[in-house]
């Protein structure tokens, strides 16, 4: 299970593309965000505002965290390997300097927290990544980084960082390539 979780997260992220309305759609657990990017503000008529965060790739049995984590129980903030639960989660994201509570918030278990302490919901997990991966974040905002589908000049489906990169084991794993083309000698 521990072995498969990153793959499952990756797959659920890729499979979990949900078309996003212009921030006006009701009934979606999404939050509006303006990226505060001058490029997006000076938009021509051709490219409509199209961004709103898709749901983060959370699996049902681990979220909401507060279902299990009782706020009454004192928190052990000592970095250590997990034993009772979450032991299948690999910690391959700068393990020398980070562990669970570097991102997850011990006081508000259903939130993440930034370096300065401010809490962010999982829907805005990109803000967490942006702290260390600033250049990547700028690229992602501009559309240079990350896969997008939809309309080149209109509504697009974008993905959260976590939709493609497991936060616990972020590096892309090699994949099996499709078959090579046939050589011309074999075409008869």
């Amino acid at each position, binding site marked *: 299970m521990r072995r498969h979780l990153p793959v499952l997260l990756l797959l659920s992220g890729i499979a979990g593309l949900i078309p996003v309305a212009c921030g006006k759609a009701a009934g979606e657990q999404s939050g509006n965000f303006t990226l505060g990017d001058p490029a997006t503000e000076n*938009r021509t008529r051709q*490219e409509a505002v199209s961004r709103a965060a898709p749901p983060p790739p959370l699996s049902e049995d681990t979220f909401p965290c507060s279902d299990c984590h009782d706020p009454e129980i004192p928190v052990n903030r000592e970095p250590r390997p997990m034993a009772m639960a979450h032991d299948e989660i690999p910690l391959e994201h700068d393990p020398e300097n980070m562990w669970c509570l570097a991102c997850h918030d011990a006081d508000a278990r259903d939130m993440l927290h930034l370096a300065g302490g401010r809490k962010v919901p999982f829907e805005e997990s990109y803000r967490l990544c942006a702290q260390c991966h600033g250049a990547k974040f700028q*690229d992602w905002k501009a559309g*240079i980084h990350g896969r997008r589908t939809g309309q*080149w000049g209109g509504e697009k489906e974008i993905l959260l960082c976590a939709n493609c990169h497991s936060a616990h084991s972020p590096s892309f794993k090699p994949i099996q*390539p*499709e078959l*090579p083309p046939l050589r011309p000698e074999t075409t008869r």
Partner: protein
Amino acid sequence: MTTTEHSRRDFVCAIAGCAAAMAAGGCSDFTHTPFFKKCFRDMRPQQIAVLLADLTQKNKHRFGRDVEITATTSQPGVEFGYALDLSRCVGCRRCVHACVEENNQSRDPQIHWIRVLEMEKQKGIDFAHADPYYEAEEVPREGHFYLPVACQQCENPPCVSSCPVGATWQEPDGITVIDPDWCIGCRCCISACPYGARHFNWAEPEIPAAELNPQMHVIGNRPRPKGVVEKCTFCIQRVRSGRYPACVEACPVGARKFGNLLDPASEIRQVLDTKNVFVLKSELNTRPRFFYFYGD
């Protein structure tokens, strides 16, 4: 019989033989479409309408499926550009196969519009030592990087000037297209293209009916006859209705970027403004609209 009569007789016999052989071979070019129809770019709207109706019927007959063929023209203020992040591409070839399905390419003989070249990091971009036939359990392979190549939709396309009948031309939105009913199959354009982007139908293309993409554009992904040239059109059937090309959406690592070069807010312009891009074989002055960059 004089010499000229002799040669004329040979010639007429050859033509008659051609016609007979083609009719016998079941070539449907003769059955519905008028033989003397014009090149697509010279057609009047009503002729285009007739052509679309004829193609719809022909494809339904051939594949047993309803198809939708459009002739959407280019929009003003749009010029398409493409950028590919070489630091992202892992050589998985998902783009190649997404393209084959989207654009109704022949499975046998096999035609691929996109060719992914595996190159060595030590050598950099070196076509002489590139390998499109790499096979591996997993990609990317250690010490290698991957360079997919398809039509570069050049600003100064050598293929367009080489065509003796004007069967290939560049549309106002930058896409170089081919009229498969006008192309005579001389393959001058294939010799002229520096990127190996153009492909010839050496035999009657074979497309399984179940895998046919019924959303077609008349100078895009509608099934081509044998004996004509074809190539990437930036998925003209998709991009002219506002969608990304199939390869852009298929890429699992988001290496492919596409948009309107004339829109300062587009993704492609973001790439050109913030990244250092280059083009292939720039010394040939083809001025491709397909840029490569290293995002990392």
